């Protein structure tokens, strides 16, 4: 295994296991399993009260939106926790490829996000009696995975903010809430003001949710391939921005000697 590949896979996995402190069942169950179900129920019932959309709309929207939770928090926590462990300086003074270092850390997070989204979708569908054609299961799994990739791209940007801002939990929560409002999770995009719709088109989730809703309504993977490709493309762009920002803020922190104090 070549050195950067080893940093990518082994380093990424070790970092996830060591630093993402949410892997204990005491956090994992309430955060990744209980909370998404109640978010789905909350908005499904608001939807019923407002006579807006079917339960399926809210199950798909909120389950996919929950893929972003681990993607945003894990990427920020893993860098922030390096600081708490006093290993951030050592990590960033190592000669390891930054691309392998940071992208490797994102791989387990993507899988985590996809599993949370899939669980929310299955549990929400069972509780609210939402029926999805069996032929849509595999394409939906793919869309959830692509959405997790795309949200992890934004997560990299959030991780970079963690190099500058100590309270990364605040930025993670704000980004999570921002996606909730902007991406058509619970409100059809055409009901949002034009400027919000415009912003939503460059955010992760928006196209993934749209693709998943079409698949749940019986469309084929071919029908939504454009949406899936757009979602992936948006994720790649955010990942590039995130990696560039990480590099920039690392250099800035070295220059100003603010790595530990920021």
């Amino acid at each position: 295994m070549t050195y950067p590949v080893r940093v990518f896979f082994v380093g990424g996995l070790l970092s996830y296991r060591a630093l993402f402190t949410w892997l204990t069942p005491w956090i994992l169950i309430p955060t990744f399993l209980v909370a998404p179900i109640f978010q789905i129920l909350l908005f499904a019932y608001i939807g019923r009260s407002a006579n807006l959309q079917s339960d399926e709309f809210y199950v798909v929207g909120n389950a996919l939106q929950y893929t972003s939770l681990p993607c945003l928090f894990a990427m920020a926590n893993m860098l922030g926790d390096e600081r708490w462990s006093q290993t951030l300086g050592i990590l960033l003074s190592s000669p390891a490829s930054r691309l392998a270092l940071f992208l490797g850390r994102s791989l387990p997070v993507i899988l985590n996000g996809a599993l949370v989204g899939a669980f929310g979708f299955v549990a929400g569908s069972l509780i609210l009696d939402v029926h999805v054609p069996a032929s849509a299961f595999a394409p939906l799994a793919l869309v959830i995975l692509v959405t997790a990739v795309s949200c992890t791209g934004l997560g990299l940007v959030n991780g970079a903010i963690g190099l500058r801002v100590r309270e990364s939990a605040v930025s993670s929560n704000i980004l999570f809430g921002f996606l909730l409002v902007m991406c058509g999770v619970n409100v059809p995009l055409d009901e949002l003001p034009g400027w919000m719709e415009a912003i939503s088109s460059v955010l992760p989730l928006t196209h993934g949710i749209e693709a998943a809703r079409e698949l749940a309504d019986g469309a084929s993977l071919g029908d939504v391939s454009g949406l899936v490709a757009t979602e992936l493309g948006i994720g790649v762009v955010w990942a590039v921005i995130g990696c560039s920002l990480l590099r920039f803020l690392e250099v800035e922190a070295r220059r100003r000697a603010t790595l530990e104090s920021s």
Partner: protein
Amino acid sequence: MRTARLLVLGWLLQLKVMMRSAFNGVLSVVWPMFFATTAFFMYRAGRDEATLVYASLGASVMGIWSATSTSASSVLQRERRHGTLELLAAAPANFAYILIPISVAMSTIGLYSMIATLLWGRFVFGIELHLVHPLLFVLAVPVTIASVGALGFLLSVACVRYRSAWALGNALEYPVWLICGFLVPLALLPNWVGPISWVLAPTFGVRAIREAALGGTPVADLLACAGLGVAYFGAGILLADHVLRLARKSAALQLS
């Protein structure tokens, strides 16, 4: 008199500490606004002005619970991390009277969120609110804050042995919003949810605030909210005493 001084000064001090924290100060205001905004868009899309006002009042109370649930459940863990838990436990004052102002200060922070949500609804979504019983409305808000703070206090004591209690508090955020009828009429929920909502003070708090604002008979709800708050305080004081004795006996205050 000394107890009253402890409670008031403790509350003021904790309020000042929390207002300096980005997590407690900023996020407590901003976080419920995302949900309130989503709910406003949903109700507005439903083209029913009456439900929009109903949602606006419920959404404004969401922040009080949000500010309390996550933070209060991890109060003891926070003191443990600060290294002040032993000092608090060893202080001559009753341990419960030290914890109560902390959780009530947390719910008080929710007042910011309440005001911000009402202003957000007014100026961004054009939701106009004319208070039918302004005095009862003004009375219902602190009673709800105190009762939610009492629930937070009970939660903090109940979670003493749970290292990651913040996760439990976090997970309780949505269920309470849903079960207590903050945004959805309780009549829409399954019947079995009713009895659960009756033992939760926020149910009556939000109903009292709504009825005081929109017209109705808020006094009974106000009394129920206050009564449940007193019951939480009582149960929490007994539990705190028991928990502290156990922790001292097994020398597990720091490790529990």
